[in-house]
């Protein structure tokens, strides 16, 4: 009784913070690949942020043996796993994740402000290809613009989230605006294309006639229609 009085009193402060709740999905390889891409694009968003892993799907598809593998995978990416949920604590017994918190209180929050906040810091993604795109090859880049220094052959295709720039003859297909929709454009030094598309609008070579054939051309969306105009 007297002993207790001599010890200093512990003072507590409260703090609330936002944890990310992530639910890994199957197939796991694809999910981790998507995570890696997301982390590359907005590294600041994940740095130092506590993560709670919802293992319901992992358990349902992969069984108990998949649990430590998934958690190790998260840790290998420098994610700070502070808790798990959706899993019976006994299933993690005798793994190194035995002591991780199993039930963290908190309330769900929408994450819109967070995902948008780091976006301006990230440079718009673009893909540069400085060799010819050969027939049968398909360049698909959903994250942004594609620039090709060289020709795009007949039977090749280029698909971009943003705009497409071809410094050479465009003889195959070009489809722009998977992400940026009507804001995307296609530019080429020499138009001999088979098909051009921007934001769900497309035209084939027979639609634009011989007047633009072989010329430098840009393609854009204008009031719901695809417009081709010569640049020279």
């Amino acid at each position, binding site marked *: 009784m007297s002993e207790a009085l001599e010890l200093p009193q512990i003072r507590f402060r409260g703090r609330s913070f936002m944890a990310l709740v992530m639910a890994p999905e199957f197939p796991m390889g694809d999910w981790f690949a998507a995570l890696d891409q997301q982390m590359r694009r907005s590294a600041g968003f994940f740095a130092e942020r506590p993560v709670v892993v919802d293992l319901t799907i992992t358990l349902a598809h992969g069984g108990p043996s998949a649990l430590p593998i998934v958690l190790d995978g998260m840790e290998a990416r420098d994610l700070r796993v502070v808790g798990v949920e959706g899993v019976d604590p006994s299933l993690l017994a005798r793994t190194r994740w035995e002591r991780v918190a199993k039930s963290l209180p908190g309330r769900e929050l929408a994450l819109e402000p967070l995902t948008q906040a780091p976006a301006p810091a990230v440079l718009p993604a673009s893909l540069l290809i400085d*060799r*010819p*795109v*050969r*027939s*049968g*090859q398909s360049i698909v880049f959903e994250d942004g613009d594609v620039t090709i220094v*060289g*020709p795009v*052959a*007949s*039977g*090749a295709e280029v698909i971009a989230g943003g705009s497409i720039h071809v410094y050479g*003859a465009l*003889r195959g297909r070009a489809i722009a605006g998977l992400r940026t929709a009507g804001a995307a454009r296609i530019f080429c030094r020499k138009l001999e294309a088979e098909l051009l598309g921007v934001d769900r609008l497309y035209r084939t070579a027979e639609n634009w006639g011989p007047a633009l054939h072989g010329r430098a051309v840009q393609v854009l969306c204008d009031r719901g229609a695809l417009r081709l105009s010569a640049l020279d």
Partner: protein
Amino acid sequence: MSKVMVVTSGKGGVGKTTSSAALGAALAQAGQNVVVVDFDVGLRNLDLVMGAERRVVFDLVNVVQGDAKLPQALIRDKRLETLSLLPASQTRDKDALTEDGVGRVIDELRERFDWIICDSPAGIEKGATLAMRFADVAVVVTNPEVSSVRDSDRIIGMLDSKTQRAEDGGRMEKHLLLTRYDAARAARGEMMKVEDVLEILAIPLLGIVLESPDVLTASNLGSPVTLHNPASPAARAYADASRRLLGEEVVVRPPEERRGFMSRLFGRRAAA
């Protein structure tokens, strides 16, 4: 250093086998130790074009599968002792080849020859991919027609991605061999021009072989055109190409018309 050279095209009937035999013979005539390997398992032709069809005992598939030793399957040319042939099997199909097996045979051939010429089958399937798999150099045989040019473009893309050299981060040396070219038809706009083909494919030109009965005659007689009729324009084009492959600077001869003025006039009238 031995070189593995694939002769490929994507499209069939453009002159891969004829060119393999002619280039092989031309390189052998230049003193190189050459083997020409027929990868067209199931549709073997190279033995006919090289006049060795009566001498085939074992073939590439036997060697790949370990049923025969390499020296048993190699056929030495009777006219040129530095030229050999490794024939394909006519009774099997492309699935009889494995990547490991082909790699082993190529390694063994590298120890014996300066040039290993792989005559690729048409198409982009297993036979064609295995023929190009271990190559250091590629000769892309193309006719001046849109279908052949587009198929060649596709093959060039595969040479740059599906070969061991490309996968190791190296660059595949590629050459364009334009065959069955007819200057008169190109001038009339009935055929693609050399510069059009070069612009589309964007690889260096190894040579232009004119469409000529000399080539067909030589093939039917089972003799590469460079051996059968060395003075013919086609043979000279192949000989020049082989010198370029050996690193010599040889200017590509512009494709001239061999016909005289009168026959040209007649030909034009006949076409009109």
